[in-house]
């Protein structure tokens, strides 16, 4: 049996019947529907911010707001890549370790080989993209599920980063490099830039549109002539590229590189994507939601910290919110 949609506006209407005769108004409906989805998450963000605003006097500060954005931005860039992978029905647990490898590679390029900044950045981006491609290629060639392949990547890339970094002092980078990640403004600009580019990619391009089709129903997409394997590899490359971008910003911000960085970032990224409202089951979502999802997470972290709540409790709060977000996604799917 095919799905019998339970949409109340079109109950069992025949092929030659229409729910709304006016086409221009329906375009608005579709757009309104889109906005409604993002508004819900945005409203949640504002609400959470307001709660802390009321509860905690030191929270009522523009610097606090900026630091939320600052903390969110680097992880949000990484999460933009994760968004693409999750919409396509994939999963990437290795981006935190790709982050570590790229950080170390860029550190070596700058501190040891004293390469120009642009060269180090390009090498870093290339390494991240290649590791992402490797994730995708292994999956489509072997047929091993994404969870396992990228779980392998999670530990293997981490080991790789440790080997590269051992016995090296990766710090004290040129000033022109430090500009990238220091302060709030630059990371924020790069975050919005990355979100804009990925957003345009997802909504305007053929490969981007195929993420939704593949994540929605891979078999239909395949039978329709969509090149699944090739597309998937590209999506993991974007995941790797975004992890690399985030890593470069963090190395610049901290002014040192070490393989322990990036730990659990893949989970923060997935959490932000899911809290934002992108479906964990593929086929739906967007980067705007992910940015808001990351801001929600950081607002809770910062807000709880201001209220004197320890990081352990913060973790519990975030965990509960992740489960709530997925519950919302699941119950929405069930109601269809």
């Amino acid at each position, binding site marked *: *049996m*095919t*799905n*019998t*949609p339970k*949409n109340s*506006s*079109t*109950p*069992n*209407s*025949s*092929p*030659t*019947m*229409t*729910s*709304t*005769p*006016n*086409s221009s108004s*329906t*375009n608005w*409906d*579709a757009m309104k*529907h889109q906005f409604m989805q993002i508004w819900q998450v945005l409203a949640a963000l504002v609400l959470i911010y307001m709660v802390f605003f009321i509860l905690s006097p030191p929270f009522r500060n523009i610097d606090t707001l900026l630091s939320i954005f600052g903390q969110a931005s680097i992880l949000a860039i990484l999460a933009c890549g994760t968004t693409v992978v999750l919409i396509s029905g994939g999963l990437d647990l290795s981006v935190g370790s790709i982050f570590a490898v790229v950080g170390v590679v860029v550190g070596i390029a700058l501190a040891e080989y004293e390469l120009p900044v642009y060269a180090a950045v390009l090498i870093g981006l290339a390494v991240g993209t290649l590791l992402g491609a490797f994730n995708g290629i292994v999956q489509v060639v072997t047929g091993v599920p994404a969870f396992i392949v990228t779980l392998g990547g999670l530990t293997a890339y981490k080991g790789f980063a440790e080997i590269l970094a051992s016995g090296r002092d990766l710090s004290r980078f040129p000033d022109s490099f430090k500009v990238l990640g220091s302060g709030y403004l630059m990371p924020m600009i790069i975050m919005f830039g990355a979100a804009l580019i990925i957003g345009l990619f997802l909504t*305007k*391009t*053929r*490969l981007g*549109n195929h993420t*939704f*089709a593949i*994540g*929605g*129903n891979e*078999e*239909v*997409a*395949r*039978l*329709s*002539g*969509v090149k699944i394997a090739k597309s998937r590899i590209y999506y993991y490359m974007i995941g790797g590229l975004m992890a690399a971008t985030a890593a470069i910003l963090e190395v610049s911000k901290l002014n040192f590189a070490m393989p322990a960085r990036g730990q659990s970032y893949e989970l923060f990224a997935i959490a932000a994507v899911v809290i934002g409202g992108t479906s964990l089951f593929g*086929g*739906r979502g967007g980067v705007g939601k992910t940015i808001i999802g990351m801001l929600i997470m950081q607002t809770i972290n910062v807000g709880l910290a201001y209220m004197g709540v320890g990081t352990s409790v913060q973790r519990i709060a975030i965990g509960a919110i992740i489960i709530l977000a997925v519950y919302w996604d699941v119950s929405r799917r069930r109601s*269809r």
Partner: protein
Amino acid sequence: MEKNEIKHLQKAKNILEARGISKHYGGIKALDDVDLVLRDGEVLAVVGDNGAGKSTLVKAITGAISRTSGTILFDGEEVRIDSPTDAKAVGIETVYQDLALVNEISITKNIFLGREIVKDNILGRVFGVLDFKKMDTETRDLFKKLDIRIADIYRDAQAFSGGQRQAVALSKTVLFGKRIAILDEPTAALGVRESKMAMDLVASLKDHGLSVIMITHNMQHVMNYCDRVMVLRLGRLVAVRDVKDVDGDTLVGLITGANKSKVA
């Protein structure tokens, strides 16, 4: 039978011939040496009990599954069809049962899935930026031509009824299936009224220059909408008949194997 077959072959042009199609899964013969001939402009019904090999036959012809053996001739010439894309390239469009539309994307995007129109400029050629305006216009024109009144083409496919979804899926065959439409149980999930609508749409495919292969369980549809019928049983072809020469009871007999003496 041989003589009859030859006479038929000479009478109308064969647009598609599949010869000796077999599909084995290990020791199981899901399809065993089945021949299929589709004439230009006809609606050919494929009937058979569950597990007779109808869907397997269609998938083997369109390259959705690999064949164990068999050749395919299109317009009398042998063609290589190893994937759904190959089938589309020669002009065969297939509506698979339950696998016609992606729920999560809009009607327009479903219509053009895998064959999107990119902008006719550098953005389109280099980055694959899509021309939604053109695709929307073509979708509207297509629906108008086929009298499908779906206005909200921006909406996700899942918002539509089974009949509307089937209409959208069938319309793809007109837009892209330049020659042949293959339909796997186009009314399987539909109510009576929606079935009638869908079958009228199937009948109109002829007017748009398509020859049709249709898998069905509905003998009424065979009698009312089809020109010829082929019967499969347990992976084998047991009969090919002109619809005007058979009645529903005979067909059911052929499908179940009750009247073996009449098998051609």
